[in-house]
């Protein structure tokens, strides 16, 4: 076995070595090293690697704990006025409270002081962020629902249906939204007020009629951006072979939209919805700042800031607290949304 036998290129003789059983080393290469990863797992893995997005998520969770859970066992309530404790600076006590403390009672500190009516400011800021978060989440859910449906119908059917539906979108784009919000808030005041009198609808007056109209306005107006994005996606997705295949198998239009097209643009949907949350919070705070947001005494971050402007010279921390909280909320939702986009929908980057 010194020299390999030179094989005639035309010979049909088989190479014996090709038929030897595989040794251990060769077997190793066939072992699946990593589990196959699906869409979600892959995206989650990428998201977890993104430090900025994870920190933002932690901040969002923290803010949610503070605004939804902490107020329920906080010693003060957002509407409780403490006599003699008006406009306290952070971590100070009124004379009465100092007397109580001297007598051995425990008094919970006013972490952020109190406002001009003697209400604990920390709880008001927490309740304010609760309102802001609720608006952001509910509004985005509404926008997602309406926008994706509208956009997918327009994109899927195309032609004159698309043309008509998109002209409506254009008109909604052109009417100033503040006008519609203020008008609707006034239009809805009486019917909603009457509804609040009915048993089971008492919560309406707690949240405030304006708040409900803000939701309705979001549902009516703000879905247009979402609809445009979804329409663009659907228009390209519907040309795919699997849609033709589904149609050939006899699937109805509704089924194709629901099962095939919307599931394929889910990345875009998640990302757009997440980025919608901060913009909804933005709008709500702006409206509350104008004084057409939530009903008093319920605070919102915008109305807290608006109230604090009058006393800006003497009590600047009353302005800083809501201003910083709202900026942090919007910032972390934006950064988290960016992270989601990079993880789930890298194509959308531009």
């Amino acid at each position, binding site marked *: 076995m010194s020299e390999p036998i030179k094989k005639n290129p035309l010979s049909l003789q088989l190479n014996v070595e090709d038929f030897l059983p595989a040794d251990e080393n060769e077997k190793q290469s066939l072992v699946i090293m990593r589990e196959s990863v699906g869409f979600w797992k892959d995206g989650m893995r990428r998201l977890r690697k993104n430090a900025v997005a994870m920190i933002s998520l932690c901040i969002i969770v923290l803010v949610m704990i503070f605004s939804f859970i902490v107020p329920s066992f906080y010693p003060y309530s957002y509407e409780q006025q403490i006599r003699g404790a008006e406009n306290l600076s952070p971590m100070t006590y009124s004379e009465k409270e100092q007397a109580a403390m001297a007598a051995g009672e425990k008094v919970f500190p006013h972490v952020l002081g109190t406002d001009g009516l003697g209400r604990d400011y920390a709880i008001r800021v927490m309740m304010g962020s609760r309102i802001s978060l609720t608006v952001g989440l509910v509004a985005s859910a509404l926008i997602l629902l309406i926008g994706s449906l509208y956009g997918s119908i327009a994109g899927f059917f195309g032609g004159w249906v698309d043309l008509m539906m998109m002209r409506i979108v254009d*008109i909604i784009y*052109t009417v100033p939204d503040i006008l519609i919000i*203020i008008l609707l808030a006034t239009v809805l005041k*009486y019917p909603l007020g009457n509804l609040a009198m009915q048993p089971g609808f008492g919560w309406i007056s707690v949240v405030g009629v304006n708040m409900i109209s803000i939701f309705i306005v979001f549902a009516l107006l703000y879905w247009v951006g979402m609809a445009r994005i979804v329409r663009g996606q659907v228009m390209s997705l519907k040309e795919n072979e699997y849609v033709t295949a589904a149609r050939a198998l006899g699937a109805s239009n509704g089924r194709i939209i629901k099962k095939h097209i919307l599931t394929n643009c889910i990345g875009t949907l998640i990302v757009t919805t997440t980025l919608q949350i901060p913009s909804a919070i933005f709008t709500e*705070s702006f409206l509350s*700042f104008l004084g057409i947001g939530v009903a008093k005494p319920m605070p919102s971050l915008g109305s807290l*800031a608006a109230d604090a402007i009058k006393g800006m010279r003497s009590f600047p921390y009353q302005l800083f607290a809501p201003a910083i909280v709202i*900026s942090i909320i919007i910032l972390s939702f934006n950064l988290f949304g960016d992270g989601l986009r990079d993880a789930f929908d890298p194509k959308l980057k531009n």
Partner: protein
Amino acid sequence: MGKYILKRIALAVLTLFLVCTLTFFLMNLVPGGPFMAEKAISAQAQAAMNEKYGLDKPLTEQYVNYMERLLHGDLGVSVKQRGRTVNQIIATKFPVSAKVGGISVLVALAVGIPLGSVAALKRGSWLDNLIMFFATCGIAVPSFVVCTLLMYFLSLQWGLLPTYGLSSWQNYIMPVMALAFYPTSYIARLMRSSMLDVLGQDYMRTARAKGLSQSKSLFKHALRNAILPVVTYLGPMLAYTLTGSFVVEKIFTIPGLGSEFIGSITGRDYPLIMGTTIFLAMLIIVMNVIVDIAYKVIDPRIKLK
């Protein structure tokens, strides 16, 4: 080109008509009227006032009357500001808002475009991170927060700038900063992502390969292509900034169109609501057409149809 502009104008007129109609009926759907809030007015006086301004007529008649006058360019008489026409109000208030807004747009462009381009060129460096951090903050912080913080530190704490009015050039600094903050950040972000996109294109490599200098390839090839998304954004941005932001005008007590608009809605000054809405809608539409034409000028590959 001419055909395209004609088509756009026809579409604009249609959109404007629909916006008018929608606003008119929505506005009148609201229970109450301009004279309801003033308690001192007796029922007879109210009726007289309604008659004077033609508010007692059936809605369809009012609508036809209004549209007829609108076609002659007459926006009607303000119900709340006695003796002043809506045309006069817009003519006096718009220049104020437009001046502050115009400066802000220039500032936003002059700062945002270079910042975004630098961030893209130095991608991944500390400079990029720093610029993007500020740009993200700029998008996240609501304008009333920016306004109040500026006012607190620059005027109340350090006493550098006057707090209200527009009497000297120093008065412009804070409103312009507050107004330009958001668009600057937005433009910087847009510019960065489109610049990154362009820098990866083949024609950039070709430009460098055929011996163009770094600066020439950047200004001639990259910037011109990367600026398109900014131009798109510029249209609506210009319209909204020029007509004035209510928050900025309220906080810095600027007598502009933005505060007039919100005031007209809460005060139910019907003709003024209609007038300002139509004005704003028209501005948006015109700006969008201009942007489309500017597109064609910047990028000759684009076909307008």
